[in-house]
């Protein structure tokens, strides 16, 4: 069974931990999640205003 060939065992073990700890974990950490949307209804309608350009 070629899985029991001990030649690449060390490199596979090393590379697995490298991928796992140095690639995937930082990628996952860089995700920032936003808060859930708050369900507040507007009580008063906003009145329109004119910009004071002059």
């Amino acid at each position, binding site marked *: 069974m070629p899985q029991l060939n001990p030649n*690449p*065992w060390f*490199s*596979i073990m090393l590379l*697995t931990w490298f*991928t796992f700890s140095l690639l995937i974990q930082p990628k*996952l950490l*860089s995700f*920032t*999640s936003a808060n859930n949307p708050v369900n507040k209804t507007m009580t008063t309608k906003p009145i329109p205003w004119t910009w004071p350009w002059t």
Partner: protein
Amino acid sequence: MNLSFFDQFSSPYLLGIPLILPSLLLPALLLPSPGHRWINNRLSTIQLWLTHLITKQLMTPLNKAGHKWALLLTSLILLLLSINLLGLLPYTFTPTTQLSMNMALALPLWLATLLTGLRNQPSASLGHLLPEGTPTLLIPALILIETTSLLIRPLALGVRLTANLTAGHLLIQLISTATITLLPMMPSISTLTALILFLLTILEVAVAMIQAYVFVLLLSLYLQENI
């Protein structure tokens, strides 16, 4: 040299260059890094949703101290899921069929849960070796049995994933060989075998996801006992 059915599992080399590096890196590169915006593109949003779903599912049974393991367990299940699912594409190499990779993940992580338990709550961790309500006469035998089952956990963890994936890939190869060989001789039987192959592929997709989940779930259970 004649190929046997097991040669799909040998670590791939091209012109002497070991290809295990790209085959491990590529699944990681397929998970996108989010951009510097509050709301990202659809792919990142889907990945964030999936990450949250996985983290909530894994962290619910753990106490507050166990939540420190959230990053480790979630990234582990994402790695295993992506590697397992990508391995189902034709002519790809699945690193999780290698016993070396699975033992490299299972043994240190199991040992970490065990040492966490022995360091922080030694008597509670050792107390797991004797279930409650055991008859007095059975105590020595049961402690031996529980110790054996404890020590065999990393082996079982690694070999379970390896064996499931190896067996699945081997079955797919065998049945597809049968389909191709039967095609000129008995086309109807060949169609039946192709149907079996289709069903088997669906099963393998499910097994790929389930085995990744089971690996991480068991680790979280071992953590639950010890933290």
